[in-house]
C-alpha cells in the first residue's frame, strides 16, 4: 500500500449526495479477477455515452479535472454495495484523497485498505471547497496527514480529524493482514479457549 503523508493536488467537485458504489463502478465492470484495470470504468455511466464516447457534461471529462487527485462530494459517499472495486477504480484514476461530509462504513474501510485518505468535513467547509473547485480551475489543495491540515492558495486553512490507527496505517502504508498476523498467538489462544472446533 502506497503511504500518504502530504499531498498536493487538483480538486474535482461532484455536487451530489449519496453517491453509491454502483455509480462509482457499475456492475458490468466487476467481472475482472485482478485488482487493476478499473480506473477506466470509474463513474462509467456518468462519464461515457452508451457508445463509449465521453460525456461533455461530466466533471471528470473536463480538461481541468482530468488530472484531479482530490475528490469533493456530498454526504454519505460510497453507500450501497461493498465492492472494493470502487476504491480500486478511484485510486487507479489517480485519486488519493476524498472529502465529504460523511462516508458509508464499508467504503471507508475499503478506502483505508487501499491507501485512499477519506476526510470528513462539515458542510460549511465542504461547500466553499466545492465552489472554489468550480471557480478557480484548476483549484489545488494541500492535504497534510501528519499535521492533519488542509490549505489552499487563497487563505483556506482547516484542520481535520482522523482516527489515530487509520492515520498511522496510511502514513506508513501498512497492510492490515500483516498487522493482524503479528497477533497470531492471540488468535490461536482465542480458538483454543472458545473451542472453535473443525466443522
Amino acid at each position: 500500500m502506497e503511504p500518504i503523508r502530504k499531498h498536493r493536488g487538483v480538486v474535482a467537485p461532484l455536487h451530489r449526495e449519496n453517491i453509491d458504489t454502483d455509480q462509482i463502478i457499475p456492475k458490468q465492470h466487476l467481472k475482472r479477477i485482478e485488482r487493476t484495470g478499473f480506473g477506466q470504468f470509474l463513474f462509467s455511466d456518468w462519464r461515457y455515452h452508451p457508445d463509449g464516447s465521453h460525456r461533455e457534461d461530466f466533471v471528470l471529462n473536463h480538461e481541468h479535472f482530468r488530472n484531479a487527485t482530490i475528490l469533493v462530494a456530498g454526504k454519505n459517499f460510497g453507500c450501497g454495495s461493498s465492492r472494493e472495486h470502487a476504491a480500486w477504480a478511484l485510486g487507479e484514476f489517480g485519486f488519493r484523497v476524498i472529502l465529504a461530509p460523511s462516508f458509508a462504513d464499508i467504503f471507508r474501510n475499503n478506502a483505508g485498505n487501499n491507501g485512499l485518505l477519506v476526510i470528513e468535513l462539515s458542510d460549511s467547509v465542504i461547500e466553499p471547497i466545492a465552489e472554489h473547485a468550480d471557480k478557480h480551475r484548476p483549484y489545488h489543495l494541500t492535504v497534510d496527514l501528519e499535521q492533519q491540515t488542509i490549505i489552499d492558495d487563497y487563505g483556506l486553512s482547516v484542520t481535520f480529524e482522523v482516527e489515530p490507527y487509520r492515520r498511522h496505517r496510511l502514513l506508513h502504508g501498512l497492510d492490515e493482514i500483516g498487522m493482524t498476523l503479528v497477533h497470531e498467538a492471540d488468535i490461536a489462544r482465542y480458538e483454543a479457549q472458545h473451542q472453535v472446533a473443525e466443522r
Partner: protein
Amino acid sequence: MQTPKTLFEKVWDSHVVRAPEGEPALLYIDLHLVHEVTSPQAFEGLRLANRKVRRPDLTFATIDHNVPTTSDERFQIKDQIAAQQIATLRKNCEASGIPLFDIGSGRQGIVHVIGPELGLTQPGMTIVCGDSHTSTHGAFGALAFGIGTSEVEQVLATQCVSQKKPRSMRISATGKLPEGTTSKDLILEIIRRLGTDGGTGYVIEYAGEVVRSLTMEERMTMCNMSIECGARAGMIAPDDTTFAYMEGRPYAPKGSELNKAVSLWRQLGSDDGATFDREIIIDGATLEPIVTWGTNPGMSVPVTASVPNPEDARNPSERAAMLSALEYMGLKAGTRIEDVSVDRVFIGSCTNGRLEDLRAAAKVMRGHRVQPGVAVLVVPGSEAVKQAAEQEGLDRIFKEAGAQWREPGCSMCLGMNPDILAPKQRCASTSNRNFEGRQGRGGRTHLVSPATAAAAAVAGRFVDVRGWEYRK
C-alpha cells in the same frame, strides 16, 4: 450484578480477540461466506504473500452473482469474463479446501439464501461475506456484516477482521401488520424515515410485537435491507421461531447438541435494562404497502400516495436530489403511484427470493394473466427453493400466468448476468436497490414486496394489493 447487555454487545464481546485502546478491535469470525465476484483478488493476494487460508472449515463458497438463470446457459456461460471468474472460484476453493456449493449441486444459490437454509447461519455467530447484504443473517441473532475484498483476504488469512465497535440502535415495531403489508414494506418505511445514512455507524436491533410475530424468512427480508439505511448490521433476538427453523438443517446441531445450543441461544436476547445509543418506535398497525419512486431506497411512498414534489423538499440538496431522481425515473411530481405503469417485473433476490416470497407472489398471480407487454421474471433464491417451489406447484402458477420461471441466482437484482433492463424500462422489483443503472443502464427500478410486484405484473401498473381479487 452484571451490567445489562444488548444482543449486539453479547455477540460482539464474545468474539473479541484483542481490543487495544485506540485501535479497531480484532473480531473472530465463525462463518465466512464467499462468492465469485469479491473473492478472486483476495485469493490472489494470499498467493502473492505466500499465505494460507487459516480455517477452510469455517469458510463456504457458492456461485450467485454472475450465473445466468436459463437452464441451458447456466452450465455454458457465454460471457467469457464471467465464466473466468467462476472458474477462478472453483480453482481457489479446490486449492484451499473450501467447500463449494456449485451450480447443479442442489445447494447452490444466493449466498444469503443458502447460509440460513443449510443451517450454516446460527444464532450468536459472527458472519462475514464480501457482500453488503450479509446483514441478512442477523435475523438469527448473528452479528453479520458485509466486508470489502481486502477484508475478505484478512479473514481468509487470519479468520479475524479488524472492526471499530459500532453504536447500537433499537427499532421497535408495535402492533400488528395490517393484511396485505409485509416485512418488506416495514423495512422500506424504516429506511424512508431514517434516510439512506441514518443507520451509519450503528448496528440495529429490530424488536417489538411485529418483529416477534414474523417468520424467519420475513425477518431475513428486514435484516437484509439494514445496509440500505447505512447500518453496519441488523439483528433480531433468536426465539422459538428461530430454534424451530434450525431443526433438521444439514449444518445445524442435532439432537442433544441442538438442545444444548438452544439453551445458550436463549440467553442472547438483550437484557432488561440494556441501553441503546438510539431508540425508535414505529407503529406497525398503520403501515401501508410501500413503493419507491426515486433512485435510493429511502425515496418511497405508500402505494396509495402520489410522486412527491421537489418543492416540498426540506432543503436545497434534497430538492436537487429529488429533481435528479424524477428526471432519471421519468416521473412527474403529483402522479398517482397507481397510475404508474410497468414494463418488467422481477421477483427474486436475497431480499425476497425465498419460498414464502414465491408463495406470496403466486397467491396473487394464481388464476390471473400477466398484462400483455409486461415481461415477468421469477428467480428462486436457491436450487433448494426452486425444488421446494416446484413441489408445491408454484412454478405452474407463474408459468400459467405468463411469467418466466428461472434458475437460481442474483439475476436482475444487480444485472451482472444477462438479466438486465433496457434503458427507460420500468420495473417493479422485489430486490433491494433502486440506484441509477442498478438493473441495467438507464433502467428504472421501483422496490416493492413480492405481493405488490405480482399485482403489478397482472395489472400492468402499481396497485394496492390490499384490494386484490384472489382467485382459486
